[in-house]
């Protein structure tokens, strides 16, 4: 049994390459692509917080600090793979190809925000913690049954590992050797509860030992470590090697949600001292000569524009349709539900 779980990283905090076996793979193209996604989702995230403060969005769950984990993992996926996110993984889903307008809509309580773009298989964010893990296992298992090489990824946090559904999903994944990646973002907290109170184990990675499942613990703020680890796990899954648990150690800079006040339970000043995953990547890029100020500036303003445009579209979106309250409960509505709907709409003068 592999039982030591050192944190794997390719870049150190300062952006210096520590795993030189990978140097050749750290190309400008890749760096720029990852940077672009990370900057894009950060722009989205900050805007969303902003909108919430102005009352233009509902309660919102920010992910600042976790961009490397989300982008590195999602960027490694193929279009036909399946993604099962939580409420904090819209950085990953945006990277995977989710529509930005719909992502905003979700946070405005619009069910349209649950519906993925086109042909992408993105499940609506799981709000009840850990429940999406067995779903991902099932979807992955279905791919295996079909003989495809597609995989599913379940995103979940450190707190989620305490739920029975995590355990049952892990067990099914290993028993049926489903091509699923259990991608854990260990950001150290479940709302206010620090990981030391969440579990008595030193790592989350070691939990895979209970299932005879391969696992790895990585620096979740090192986008390269995330990307290449994910790639390896994906290859294993696509080639019939079964599931992998990845523990990406990261940090949430901000509040749990906009309704949360982190200063109640931790020192936010010290929290901000952590190395920002984007800055780390930038440091690497600068060092390598991949960082062209002008190019970066263009990217940044492109993202600003994209996000502003998405906000505009979101805010001019057709108002919620009361029919949607009823119409999707069943493929064909039972008579009694039709009656409830008709009565309601009639009384409202519709």
């Amino acid at each position, binding site marked *: 049994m592999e039982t030591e779980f050192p944190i794997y990283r390719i870049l150190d905090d300062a952006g210096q390459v520590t795993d030189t076996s990978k140097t050749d793979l750290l190309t400008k193209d890749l760096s720029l692509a990852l940077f672009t996604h990370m900057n894009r989702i950060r722009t989205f995230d900050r805007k969303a917080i902003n909108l919430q403060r102005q009352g233009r969005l509902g309660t919102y769950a920010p992910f600042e600090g976790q961009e490397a984990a989300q982008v590195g993992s999602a960027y490694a996926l193929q279009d036909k793979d*399946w993604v099962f996110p939580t409420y904090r993984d819209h950085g990953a889903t945006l990277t995977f190809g989710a529509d930005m307008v719909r992502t905003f809509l979700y946070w405005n309580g619009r*069910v*349209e925000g*649950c*519906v*993925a773009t086109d042909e992408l*298989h993105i*499940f*609506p964010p799981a*709000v*009840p913690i850990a*429940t999406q*893990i*067995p*779903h*991902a*296992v*099932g*979807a*992955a*298992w*279905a*791919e295996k*049954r*079909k003989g495809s090489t597609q995989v*599913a990824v379940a995103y979940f946090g450190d707190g989620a590992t305490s739920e*029975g*559904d995590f355990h*049952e*999903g892990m*067990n*099914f994944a290993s*028993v*049926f050797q489903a091509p699923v990646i259990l991608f854990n973002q260990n950001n150290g907290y479940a709302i206010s509860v620090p990981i030391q109170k969440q579990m008595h184990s030193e790592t989350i990675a070691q939990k895979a030992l209970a299932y005879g499942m391969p696992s790895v613990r990585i620096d979740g703020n090192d986008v390269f470590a995330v990307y290449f680890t994910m790639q390896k796990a994906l290859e294993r899954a696509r080639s019939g090697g079964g599931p992998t648990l990845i523990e990406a150690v990261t940090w949430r800079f901000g509040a749990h949600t906009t309704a949360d006040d982190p200063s109640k339970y931790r020192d936010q000043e010290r929290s901000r001292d952590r190395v920002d995953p984007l800055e780390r990547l930038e440091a690497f890029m600068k060092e390598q000569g991949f960082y062209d100020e002008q190019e970066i500036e263009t990217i940044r303003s492109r993202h600003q524009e994209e996000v502003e445009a998405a906000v505009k579209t979101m805010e001019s979106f057709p108002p919620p349709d009361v029919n*949607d309250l009823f*119409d*999707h*409960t*069943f*493929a064909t509505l*039972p*008579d*009694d*539900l039709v009656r409830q709907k008709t009565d309601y709409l009639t009384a409202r003068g519709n």
Partner: protein
Amino acid sequence: MATPINRQTEMTLVQAVTDALRTKLTDDETTLVLGEDVGKNGGVFRATDGLQEEFGEDRIIDTPLSEAGIVGTSIGLAVNGFKPIVEIQFLGFIYPAYEQIMTHVSRIRMRTMGRYGVPMVIRAPYGAGIRAPEIHSDSTEALFTSMPGLKVVCPSTPYDAKGLLIAAIEDPDPVLFLESMRSYRAFKEPVPSEAYTIEIGKANCITEGQDVTLIAWGAMVQVAQKAATEAATRGISCEVIDLRTLYPLDRETISASVQKTGRAVIIHEAQATGGLGNDLLALINDTSFLYLRAPVARVTGFDVPVPLFALEDHYIPTPTRVLEAIQRTVDF
């Protein structure tokens, strides 16, 4: 495979369940059977007996002992092209999967505006009366009939079992399929060999009558019928309705009957508080208030946990208790 038309076999209810499963496993390659002991063992009630031999380990799947895992994983299978037919060993052991059913099975269609449906059938034996160990005798159907997005079906005869189960498997939405353990081998009746469906959402008026409407499902249908027979000797004519589908309720059949008889007695094994009887009562209140000549009577389990089996005969409604309620209602 040409199936001879109109061939019939005498079957028990549990055999009819197996027959329905075999039928759909044969004609729909996306169907899978998942559950604890459904493989070699053929299920603790033998409902899946012989299916693994016939369809292979790949389609008849023994899972770990993990109801949330079974249902949760089946959601993933269901949204990705398969039709999981899940066996929960006893209804009393479905509760670990309650969250998955409540927040996902029943809501995914709504949450994705119809992009994903969950065409899953969950089969569960339920009910008391067979001297089973503790927690094996629950009839908590109302926990599921009250869950928007889920249909609930409960056959009382072998014929209905086959037709309703095939309909459930063909339904694009999730269906909880309740099988009365007491009815599993209670009697045999001819069941057609070919595939047929019984429409979900329609009740079955099995005996016509003038004075009182009896509404029951599962094992309680026989109890109602016995009471009706006894009532007839007293000159009371009962109409007996086998509900067949517990959600959605068949408003037309029920209200037409009650409007004719002016009286209703509802019989179920579950306790009175929160029982499906109250939904039926509400339906009658809403549709037939002016026709009622007496309060609607309910004959149910008591508001206590289903007891260990030494006391279960006191818990389950009996023909005598139903008859008393009929008499009370007629005398009102």
